[in-house]
Each structure stands twice: as C-alpha cells, then as structure tokens.
C-alpha cells in the first residue's frame, strides 16, 4: 500500500531509536563492544607490544585495524541477541501484524548495527589517538576505510541475523560470534604472518581478516590503495550476499 511505503523511513527511525535505547541501557553490551576492545588494545600495546617485532616503530598503528575488526565482530553478536529476544518475546509478531512494511523490523536491526558499530569504531580510534596512534592518510583514504568497515559490518550483521532468527537459545544465538572474534588473532592483525608455522601462515594469509587488515593498515599509513583491497572487497561482498539470502529465507520461514 502506498502509505506503508511512504512511511518506511519514518518507521525505520522508530525501530532504530528503539534498539539504540536498548544498547544504551545494557551495561553488558557497552562493556563487550567498547571496553573489551579498548582493554585489549591497552594490553597488546603496553604489555605484549614491547616483545612483538612488526617492523614498524608504532605498534598502536599496527594493531588498530585488527582491534576495530574485533570490536565490530563482538558488536554484531548483539544484533543476534536483540533479534533473538524480539522473536522470543513475540514483539516481532506485534510489529508484523501492524500496518508497516514487513521488512522494517529486520532493517531496523541492521541499521542499528551499522550506527552502533560506527560509534564504537570512532571511540576506539579516539582512544588510539591518545595512545599515540598517528595517520598520514588523506580524506580519500579515510573514506575508503569507512567504506570497507561499513561493508564488513553489514556483511557480518547479515550473518548475525541468521542465528538471531533461528537459534533455540540465547547462548546459541551468540555462539557463532566467537570464531569471528577469534579470527583476527590468526591473521596479520597483531603479528606479521611471516613468523607463523607454514600451516597457520597459509590459513592466516588466506582468510578475510588479513586482507582487510592489510588494506586498512596501508591506507592509514598514507600508502596508495593496495591490491589486497580487491580480496578484501570480494570477501565482504561474498559473505554479504550469501548471508543475506539465508537470512531472508530464515525470516520468511520464521515469521
């Protein structure tokens, strides 16, 4: 119906406001998505960092991309939690029986994920600046970084939608996120892959996080756009498409 389409963005803003309130009122969410990555950054820079040889003088610069990806991976797990709660409590049925576009609920959660992860990324970068992070990247490089991080968030958010809709328990809804949070550790995010044994090295160099981390790191240090960007983009777009298809299928089946 015409009016339903007309109100789509208005309805979406109501959904966004609702879940942002959820985040602000959940200490657990704030600790996990913000305090933990910052604590990890402090730990790596001031405790382990001295013993890690990366070939760069500034270790904060080196690990910041990886920390951002960990923050996003733990951030999207809460999308699964919020969606799971909506399904369990039956509020999704209330929304679905109202005269609003059926996809509004899902897009509301996706938009919330993008906005809240953007906020945590900005806060973490500010903390990194205080810790000595410096970048010679130009505006274009920064815009590219924003684009890659947004695409990465979007891809993982659609991954998170699947367990959010299909999980049987709240633990099941978040379990998928642990390997994602762990992935940056087996990549070039904290140490160069050259120091790893062959099998681990092969894995590390051929998983999405390394390509994304290398791209962002190169852009932050003011280098021209590296060729890894195509690998990074291919991973993000590929994950996004597959996850979107399965998420939509789960949504139609569930509600």
């Amino acid at each position, binding site marked *: *119906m015409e*009016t*339903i389409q007309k*109100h789509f963005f*208005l*309805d979406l803003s*109501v959904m966004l406001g*609702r879940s942002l*309130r*959820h985040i602000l*009122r*959940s200490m657990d969410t704030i600790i996990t998505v913000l305090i933990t990555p910052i604590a990890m950054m402090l730990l790596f820079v001031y405790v382990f960092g001295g013993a890690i040889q990366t070939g760069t003088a500034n270790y904060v610069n080196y690990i910041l991309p990886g920390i951002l990806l960990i923050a996003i991976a733990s951030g999207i797990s809460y999308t699964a939690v919020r969606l799971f709660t909506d399904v369990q*409590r*039956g*509020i999704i*049925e*209330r*929304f*679905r*029986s*109202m*005269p*609003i576009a059926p996809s509004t609920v899902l897009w509301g959660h996706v938009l919330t994920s993008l906005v809240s992860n953007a906020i945590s990324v900005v806060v973490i970068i500010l903390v990194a600046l205080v810790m000595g992070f410096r970048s010679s990247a130009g505006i274009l490089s920064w815009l590219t970084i924003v684009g890659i991080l947004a695409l990465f968030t979007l891809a993982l958010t659609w991954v998170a939608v699947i367990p959010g809709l299909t999980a049987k328990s709240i633990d099941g809804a978040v379990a998928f996120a642990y390997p994602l949070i762990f992935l940056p550790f087996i990549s070039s995010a904290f140490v160069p892959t050259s120091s790893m044994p062959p099998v681990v090295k092969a894995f590390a160099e051929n998983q999405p996080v390394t390509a994304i981390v290398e791209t962002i790191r190169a852009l932050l240090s003011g280098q021209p756009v590296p060729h890894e960007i195509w690998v990074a983009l291919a991973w993000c777009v590929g994950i996004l498409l597959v996850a979107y298809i399965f998420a939509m299928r789960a949504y139609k089946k569930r*509600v």
Partner: protein
Amino acid sequence: MQTNSIEVADLQKSYKELNVLQGVSFTVEQGSIFALLGSNGAGKTTIIKILTTLLKQDGGTAIVNGFDVASQPDHVRQSLSLTGQFAAVDEMLTGQENLIMIARLRHLKQPRQVADELLTRFGLTDAATRRVSTYSGGMRRRLDLAMSLVGTPPILFLDEPTTGLDPEGRLEVWKVVKELADGGRTVFLTTQYLDEAEQLADRIAILHEGTILASGTLMELQKRFPAASVEYVEKQPTLEEIFLAIIGKKEEQ
C-alpha cells in the same frame, strides 16, 4: 442489519504431516465478543495467525473487516491489532516509551498524548517511567492490551489473554474486554478456560482437532447439549471466590 467483521470459510492449514485446521468456518458479528474455545494444540493460535496475516492458509478464505487476508494483507493489518499469547512488550523500554513507539508506528499525530491517556486508563500512570522489566505479570498484560488499543483499530485479536495471570489480573482483563465491546469494537479471543468464554463471549465456537464442533450463543449451546438436570448441592464457595473475598477485605481496610 448486522455486518460481519470476520468471515472464515473452509480454512485449512497443515504443518508437514500434521493437519492443524481441517475446514474451519465461522463468522463474527461486528461489535461482538467471539470466543474460540479449545484445548492446547487445537489450532487456536494457528487461526489467529492466519487472520492477522502472520501465516498463510493452505486453503479456504478468511475475510477481516471486508478484506481478504491472503490478497489484501495491508488493508487487513490496518483494521486490527494483535495481543499475542505472551505479553509482547519491550522490557527494556518504559511503559510510556512502549506506547509512544506503537503510536509512532501507527503514525498518530500526538503519540505522547495518546500514550498518557492509555496509561491513565489502564492505571499505569505511576509506573509510566519505569522499565517494563520491573512490572508484574498483570501490569505487563495491561500494558500489552493498552498497546493494542493505540490507534483504535476496529478489530482486536486476543490470544489467550488471561493465561498465566492471577485471579485479580483475570478479572481486570475481563473488565477491559467487556468495555471494548461495549464501545463497538469487535473482539476475537481464544481461551482454554470454559468460564472465561462463558463470562465474556456473545458467541462461542468450540474448536477440536482442527474443526469447529459446535458454535452459537451460550444459551444455544446449552439447549443443544445435555438437558439441565436439577440437583440439590450445598454450594461451597470456590477457592477463587474465597481468595478474592480475602484480598478485597484487605484492600478495604
């Protein structure tokens, strides 16, 4: 002339091997309270889900407020509100925020005013700015019903509105439902409690194993089934009557 708010004909639905609905037909008059009575698993929730566009039927037709649920779901959604089996309220928000949210989603002009009016009407003004997670079961149900009244949709669907409520909560819900019907709304409710159907409904339909076994007014049903026999039994107060009497006295003091 009476018009029908809901017309259901030969409704069928099955989940894989299980035939949940096997040709269900009934009509609900505008402004009446209609109770669908049945035990757990009889298919009550399935009927509600089809009528509120959450589920597609396999066969038959369902017309709500003059619109076909299968071909005009948007029009149907404009005409109704659904109160599900479990209070579908947002626990992280306050009572007031919950109502404002629904009012905004229904695109009402003054969401805050609508919310405050309903809070007053349902006796939730004192709890308005408290998070719903601190509410009692009865308060949640009241808020749930209040959310269903935002935007005054003409047809209300209540899926087991009193399941899990204490006796006082039940009476409160009954009172609200009666008021709504007096105000001209059509109320469609499901219940597994015989006394609830008896107390509230203008018409009752008994759903069993996917078909309507009997339907009509309470008097019609009474006429059709075993004739009333006269027995002299010393009437003991029911536990419910005792409970309410004690509570009532305590509140008077």
